[in-house]
């Protein structure tokens, strides 16, 4: 089995995790989670360097910040399958007394999570702060972050984007999940955001586009390219074009599964399309 195939297998298992987690509690956000499964798996299995022993400060490690916290199912699955906590704990998603809250938080001290997110638009500022701490500590590792495209409608992002460009923060790679969908419909219909690449470039960022964000090889190549652009005096933005609900045919090409769980039949159908690879939790 080649490396890409192994990553594909992990992605498929992550999809199963996402679907089973949201089905069990009949709540959560499967659409965006499925769309970002390849990105998370590539990030944690191929791109970032980090210690299995979690420490909040993460000195000498690459750090990741999830700004669009509602896609917690994919985050939790990949953290568990990267050794941050036992995969069995995915069973507790959104349950009382769980460390796996509906939206990620440090409050219950879940290893792998360094900031609470859920109220949108705050993650890029936090990532910039962590990037500044890295610079002050002469720590050459990088800061990665993920944001929804709809999330860019929050004004705080543009404060952060302006700041990063002006201050030439070049140890950050901020990825935008461009799936073109949000709760009320397509991003074009809800609030058209124009040309994101031109907007970021106008704010002084280097932009890299990954045309197929659900293709493992493309994501690896794009993130490699992004890494090569760091430490060159510009912040890096990756426009990751994904399909919401990817990997489950009836969840794709619609915004309907942004925040809706499948019923029993739908779950069975979705799991049939994604056979077990690494073993269910």
């Amino acid at each position, binding site marked *: 089995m080649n490396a890409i195939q192994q990553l594909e297998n992990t992605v498929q298992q992550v999809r199963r995790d996402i679907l089973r987690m949201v089905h069990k509690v009949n709540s959560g956000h499967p659409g965006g989670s499925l769309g970002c499964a390849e990105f998370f798996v590539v990030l944690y299995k191929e791109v970032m360097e980090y210690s299995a022993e979690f420490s909040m400060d993460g000195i000498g490690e690459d*750090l990741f910040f999830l700004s669009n916290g509602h896609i917690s199912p994919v985050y939790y699955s990949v953290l568990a399958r990267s050794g941050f906590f036992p995969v069995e704990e995915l069973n507790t998603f959104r349950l009382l007394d769980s460390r796996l809250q509906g939206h990620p938080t440090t*409050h219950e001290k879940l290893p792998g999570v360094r900031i609470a997110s859920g109220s949108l638009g705050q993650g890029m500022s936090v990532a910039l702060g962590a990037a500044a701490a890295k610079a002050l500590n002469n720590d050459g590792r990088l800061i990665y972050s993920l944001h929804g495209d709809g999330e860019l409608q929050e004004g705080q992002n543009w*404060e952060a984007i302006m700041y990063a460009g002006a201050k030439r923060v070049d140890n950050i790679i901020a990825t935008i999940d461009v799936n073109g969908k949000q709760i009320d419909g397509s991003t074009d219909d809800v609030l058209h955001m124009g040309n994101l690449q031109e907007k970021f470039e106008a704010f002084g960022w280097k932009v890299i586009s990954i045309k197929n964000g659900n293709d493992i090889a493309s994501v690896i190549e794009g993130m490699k390219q992004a890494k090569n652009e760091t430490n060159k005096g510009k912040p890096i933005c990756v426009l990751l074009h994904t399909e919401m609900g990817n990997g489950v045919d009836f969840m794709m090409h619609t915004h309907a599964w942004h925040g809706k769980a499948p019923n029993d039949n739908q779950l069975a159908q979705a799991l049939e399309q994604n056979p077990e690879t690494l073993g269910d939790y």
Partner: protein
Amino acid sequence: MIINLLKPLNKTLKHWETTDLIYMKTYTFTEKIDTRSGFGAGLTELGKSNENVVALCADLTGSLKMDDFKNNHPERFFQVGIAEANMMGIAAGLTIGGKIPFTGTFANFSTGRVYDQIRQSIAYSHKNVKICASHAGVTLGEDGATHQILEDIGLMKMLPGMTVINTCDFNQTKAATIAVAEHNGPVYLRFGRPKVPNFTDENQKFRIGKGLVLSPGTDVSIIATGHLVWEALEAAKILHEQGISAEVIDIHTIKPLDEKIVIESAKKTGAVVSCEEHNFLGGLGESISRTLATHHPTPQEFVATQDTFGESGTPAQLMEKYGLNAQSIVNATKRVIARKQ
């Protein structure tokens, strides 16, 4: 503004003619100076003593008296521009990696404008950020109500895990600034713009969560915070001349509240006047009344703004119009003593 920091406080003791020999303390001062300058002086000290301390400002460096820190430690100073939400997020992120960020802007822009950023990225995430807020209350003066926040203590004290401090003079603000750097957790440090008497000890040890009995008394407990502490001392002198013995307590830490000092004083005097440059809703007075309602129900009067916005004017005019000066405290004391059973 130059202040001679080396001059000792000129404290005097006055004999108070009661049978149980309660001695009233009165305080004098050599200079009036703004509390925000105390913050600046504290930050200057921290710049030298703690290399993990970093400072952020949203285009108000001069107003916050952060120039010294900025000039001495440019690599640890972050000018974020007029973008307070981003500033709070960056501050939260800086803690990841061991930094101790101090954010500086006006109280309105430190709280109401960025409440959700503080709530999620700082308080809920338990980040070690020190939110330092100048120009609180009506004594900001002529800029008017848009800038005179009177709701910030309430906003901040409602956040779980947030420490809330409102200092009364230059020396106390400086000491508090230094002390909060040693405290692990989010802090809201509130101070102001007007020049007020600098009367507390220059070399005081600031203890978070500990109230101070500035003068003992038997008839009423005047419990004050921030700029109203000096007014409370002035009120006690007026009351003393009228034969009323007031205990004056400085509560610099509104959360966690020093409940012990409040309860003990209320048990002794049986009447409380709370004093603050803040709305009576959500401020120190409500924290005191909650404590007393639970442990020792006591008549209380509230010297505070009465659920209103401020307006333009000089600090002294506004303090008088909104009932925040020594005379207002005297009047409130008369009312509460009349209610004693």
